[in-house]
């Protein structure tokens, strides 16, 4: 398919070809320059193009289709795409950084290091999914860490854009992915579920924290199927110092049934950023892999347990939002608290995968920042948590659907906004504030949230009773 051999010092569509940087199985990378582009850029060109290697051609087509539609620090910026008929290529930014691949050699890494990395990857993955793209080939060599620490995904040859044709789906009748990392549903050739990427991320986290691959390195299709029923050895059996909650998180990512994993990368990131709120189940406490009979049972009945594949036209994050209810328990009237509860219940009833975070801000005095550290401060903090739980009790939600947070900050609005941004909150519910003199003096938290929050905000108000 390559119509002309690329040569150093030749020019294609204004790009001056420099040195060949890398030759891979599927593509080669060339350093290129163009007079109007200041930053370092590279040209990716498919390697074997004899018309026979359909996977390489279609994978490259997919990348040409998807990459220019993505934006943000978690994907390479694209500067040009070549016409397929003459010379297929993608020119993109040169990423100053390293892939995670060398980390495998150093594993097991300390749990804190893996958790920090996991949080960054989950946050970046949520941004990718929000742009309607599922990567489908997450592995250490496809995850770059930039010099500034940002995570960037590369190699979108197996990826899928949920709003564009999937050129790969009908083309191949074999599982597509990389042996150690491929999700069970990809093994079954389903390419429509964002949670497949969470499985692959789970494999990476398992490997980095234990030094072991959870499902080995299967070399054939039969070996790939084992992960449909064979659970991995619990990470803590390899490394006792992995926290129970983190084992819970890793094993939840590695659930063979996508319905049992996190519904979104945002919800995974939420747990990683709020370890105290992770609901520990058998998964976290497990000390050895399941016995022969449970595995056999799963093996016999697997088809029934994997659940229905997602429809590709659904945007999963819309079905699994993180909803915050911000409660001012000291000031909100009973009527307002009830109204907030009703609105929260409505949202949660409508969207089954939604998750509710009940948040209260404990206002700190600017002059006594150490306040929270003394006995009185601790008591107050605990008291607020108790009150939050009491507010939520009538909702009757299980602990994995609902979390409680008391933020300590001098500025309640700033605290909520910060919380919203770092936890990918989709919807904030909060009560309207009264109109008393004190309120006017202090400014309205709700109006600042409405103006600045990067998500939907519902301000709940109880109608005033008119005085006669």
């Amino acid at each position: 398919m390559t119509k002309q051999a690329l040569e150093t010092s030749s020019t294609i569509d204004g790009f001056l070809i420099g040195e060949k940087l890398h030759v891979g199985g599927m593509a080669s990378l060339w350093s290129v320059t163009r007079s109007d582009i200041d930053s370092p850029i590279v040209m990716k060109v498919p390697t074997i193009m004899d018309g026979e290697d359909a996977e390489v051609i279609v994978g490259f087509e997919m990348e040409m289709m998807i990459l220019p539609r993505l934006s943000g620090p978690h994907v390479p910026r694209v500067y040009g795409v070549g016409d397929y008929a003459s010379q297929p290529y993608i020119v993109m930014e040169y990423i100053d950084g390293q892939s995670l691949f060398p980390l495998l050699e150093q594993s097991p890494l300390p749990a804190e290091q893996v958790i920090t990395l996991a949080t960054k990857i989950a946050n970046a993955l949520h941004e990718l999914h929000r742009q309607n793209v599922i990567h489908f080939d997450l592995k250490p060599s496809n995850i770059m860490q930039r010099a500034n620490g940002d995570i960037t995904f590369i190699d979108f040859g197996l990826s899928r854009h949920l709003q564009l044709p999937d050129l790969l789906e009908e083309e191949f009748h074999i599982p597509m992915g990389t042996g150690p990392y491929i999700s069970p549903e990809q093994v079954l050739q389903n390419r429509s579920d964002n949670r497949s990427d969470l499985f692959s991320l789970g494999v990476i986290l398992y490997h980095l924290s234990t030094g072991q691959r959870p499902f080995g390195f299967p070399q054939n299709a039969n070996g790939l199927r084992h992960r449909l029923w064979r659970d991995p050895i619990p990470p803590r059996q390899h490394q006792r110092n992995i926290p129970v909650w983190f084992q819970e998180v890793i094993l939840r990512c590695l659930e063979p049934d996508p319905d049992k994993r996190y519904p979104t990368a945002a919800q995974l990131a939420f747990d990683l950023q709020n370890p105290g709120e992770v609901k520990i189940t058998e998964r976290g406490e497990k000390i050895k892999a399941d016995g022969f009979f449970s595995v056999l049972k799963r093996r016999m009945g697997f088809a029934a347990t994997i659940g229905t594949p997602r429809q590709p036209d659904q945007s999963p994050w819309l079905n699994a939002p993180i909803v915050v209810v911000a409660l001012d328990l000291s000031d909100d009237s009973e009527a307002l608290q009830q109204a907030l509860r009703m609105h929260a219940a409505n949202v949660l009833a409508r969207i089954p995968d939604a998750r509710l975070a009940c948040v209260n801000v404990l206002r700190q005095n600017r002059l006594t920042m150490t306040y929270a550290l003394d006995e009185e401060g601790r008591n107050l903090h605990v008291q607020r948590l108790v009150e939050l739980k009491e507010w939520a009790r009538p909702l009757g939600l299980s602990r994995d659907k609902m979390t409680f947070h008391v933020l300590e900050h001098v500025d309640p609005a700033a605290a909520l906004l910060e919380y919203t941004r770092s936890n990918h909150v989709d919807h904030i519910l909060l009560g309207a504030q009264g109109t008393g003199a004190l309120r006017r003096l202090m400014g309205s938290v709700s109006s600042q949230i409405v103006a600045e929050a990067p998500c939907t905000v519902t301000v709940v108000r109880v109608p005033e009773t008119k005085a006669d």
Partner: protein
Amino acid sequence: MRIAFLSDIHGNREALEACLSHAARQGYDKLVFLGDLVGYGADPVYVVDTLADLVSKGAQSILGNHDAAAAAGLIEGMNDYASASIEWTHQELDQAQKDLLLGMPLSIEDEDRLYVHAEASSPRSWAYITDPASAERSLRSHAARLTFCGHVHKQQLYHMTPQKPPVLFIPQSAIPVPLIGNRKWLAVQGSVGQPRDQNPAAAYSLLDTQRNELTYFRVPYDIEASAAKIHAAGLPNILAARLFIGR
């Protein structure tokens, strides 16, 4: 260049106006009409006159089976309500309007694009494209990289590599699809004036040749007005009723 494709208007003035004004807001350089300007709807005269005006300004238009039937007054092979509307349309149109319809070509080739009303291997047979097999017959019958057709009233996009059968993609409204790669694309248009995919909004598409992207659109229009005219003209009720449910 940006080309707007409108197919199967079927005498629906309100739907045509809504699509043309939507396309104008998007910006286009050229209009291509893919057949069946008339039949079913109550405004054949307005639609044909509008087309004549647009053609004089550079639009292209090809013949559909309803255009041929209405101009010639032939109702052979049509069901009751279709033939009732063809006979009525035949009465409404004057000779100049009929001549204009009959003068339209069966297909047009333009650079790497083919415009045709129905399945392209035998345009005059008016065969439907409803599945990969019929799409493949159409795609293999000519060399054009991109084919634009109508006739089935359902938005469908097929893509095919030389070695494999085509694959169907159902486009989403207002999402540009890159027509990339060493493959052929068959862009079946939805209907402007009588959608049949359970979505009553009018359908058209816009190709950007520079960006090599095709965007399908759905445009709401005043269905009540179109339906009222169908009733007033004494055409079969079903022709009005189906507009509301897109079937």
